């Protein structure tokens, strides 16, 4: 077993949505300004709302454009609306509404978008472009929690943060339980899950699980890799990226999203502007997703996209070789 940081203890696989549910309930209990805005797709912790504060549940139906702007109106009056649906619905369907009515005035609206790269529903629901779409939007914070513990902490953190946030709820496959219960989640900061000297993997969301598995594969080959959990994709923790580049000299980013506009591009920008280092982006090429079985044992789409631990490990070795080639050229 590799040596992990203080707040890391690898456990069984657990569904991220459970953490979101718990975080939502705790936040809603603490802050009665929180309003649940539904778009006919359920809501995290809905049972709690129905039992304790049914008047705080607003059902907009399958009308996401209206839902986003109604939420903006509520936020303008000091409430803290959370909107929940599929990412393609809550964000992409209402992009213009979010841009004008929420972000322009920096209203305190939280967007919870389900489903990411892979899942049975196929192209329409597997919204791999979502990070790229949200990253170009000014004033929007983007969070992609890595496991069930971080999801809960992230929910509570974004409820306290004043301003618009998009939080991606990875539906499946369930990631490993990575963090301990006293893990101090810090919005906007990367967290070093494991230190290492040979290379760095910067991962977000579900891909932290695959990166940790990759780290263990690499350890068997004598490669000591640093792993950073970059759950806040925007604003990016530039310092952690620069430090990793200076200390390890080879960076691999891992995300289960389109590599166009994603975490990899954000990291590439920081590297090329402040601390050039060889980089390989693991992610989904410029293509659409599709349906597939997604059990932890049989994951057809993971194999299809090349997002498994073996792929990440291979990219780390490639990146290290790249670094050596560049050294020789000098």
């Amino acid at each position, binding site marked *: 077993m590799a040596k992990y940081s203080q707040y890391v203890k690898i456990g069984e696989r657990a569904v991220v949505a459970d953490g979101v549910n718990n975080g939502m309930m705790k936040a809603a209990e603490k802050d*009665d300004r929180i*309003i649940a805005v539904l778009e006919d797709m359920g809501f995290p912790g809905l049972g709690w709302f129905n039992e304790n504060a049914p*008047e705080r549940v*607003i059902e*907009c*139906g399958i*009308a996401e*454009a*209206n839902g*986003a*702007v*109604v*939420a*903006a*109106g*509520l*936020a*303008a*009056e*000091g*409430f803290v609306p959370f909107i929940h649906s599929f990412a393609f619905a809550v964000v992409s369907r209402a992009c*213009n*509404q979010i*841009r*004008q*009515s929420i972000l*322009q*005035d920096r209203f305190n609206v939280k967007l919870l978008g389900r489903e990411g790269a892979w899942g049975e529903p196929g192209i329409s629901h597997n919204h791999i472009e979502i990070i790229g779409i949200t990253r170009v939007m000014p004033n929007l914070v983007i969070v992609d929690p890595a496991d069930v513990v971080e999801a809960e902490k992230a929910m509570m953190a974004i409820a306290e943060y004043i301003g618009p946030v998009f939080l991606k709820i990875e539906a499946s496959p369930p990631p490993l339980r990575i963090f301990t219960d006293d893990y101090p989640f810090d919005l906007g900061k990367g967290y070093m899950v494991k230190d290492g000297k040979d290379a760095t993997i910067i991962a977000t969301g579900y891909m932290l699980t695959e990166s940790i598995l990759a780290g263990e594969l690499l350890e068997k080959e004598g490669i000591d890799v640093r792993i950073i959990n970059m759950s806040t994709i925007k604003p990016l923790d530039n310092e952690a990226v620069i430090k990793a580049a200076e200390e390890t000299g080879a960076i691999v980013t891992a995300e289960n999203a389109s590599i166009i506009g994603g975490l990899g591009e954000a990291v590439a920008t920081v590297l090329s502007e402040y601390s050039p280092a060889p980089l390989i982006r693991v992610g989904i090429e410029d293509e659409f997703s599709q349906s597939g079985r997604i059990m932890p044992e049989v994951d057809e789409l993971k194999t299809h996209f090349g997002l498994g631990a073996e792929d990440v490990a291979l990219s780390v070795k490639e990146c290290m070789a790249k670094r050596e080639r560049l050294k020789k050229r000098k």
Partner: protein
Amino acid sequence: MAHDEKLISELEEKADIVRRNIFTIFDASQMGHAGGTMSLVEIVTALYFHHLKIDPKNCDWPERDRLVLSKAHCCEAIYAILVELGVLPRETLTTYYRYGSPLQGHADRWCTQGIDYSGGSLGQGLSFAAGLALAEKFKVLRQPPSQSSLMPRYITRYNPLYRSYCILGDGECHEGQVWEAAMFAAKYKLDNLINIVDYNKFSLDGPTNEIMQIEPFIDKWKSFGWWVTEIDGHNLREIVDVLDLASNLYGDGRPKCIIAHTVKGHGVPHWEAMHTHIGRGEVISRGVQEGRAKYGKV
């Protein structure tokens, strides 16, 4: 509830002042949404100078009535009024469209005192106004019960904390979101929401009903569960009366829609004839000249 002649003639004078301010704006910018702004003048005059519960010295007053200008490209009319109310300095009239000016090309809540809604992309204002109206319901629900009265709160509340007003253009009613919002407002019984449609019959490309038919317009709103009425949007007496009526119907559980029949470019023959949407250069300067000849200069 007939209002005396004095009020109406005062408001008519105010409307002329507002027009003069608008001409000052256009004269300096040489560009603007002339048609939709002129069709709006009487409606916003009646709102700001008679009907709305506002305090020009305290634009952030929590109990002020909210006005959402969904057709935010016609913000020139609001700017003209905010200057008249002393919210904005008079010098700003000549800075419309300019860098660093509080008078942005489209109404902007961040940049301009007295503006409740940042618009530009059409069809969203009614949703926002519905959100504000819903927030009012929440706020009242959370007020501590009155200590001085033993009467139930619903009897003592013949007025909301504030009302939410929305001004829609007829062209933007082509947007599906307007009807999403209409369903939403009826569902949540937002009787504190008053929507005014500036039905000037023309959009940018041509007659609104030829571009995409919105008629039967009244029946549409009715079938969505709204209280609906129609007025002549250039008759100040009718506007004032209908606003009072719609406000007094508070408590009936229905959102209100006032369809105001107007003329695009109203008051300026050149703009009326051209159904000017956005005008530049000669269109504006000729219109301003005609308007000033009719209504005088500031």
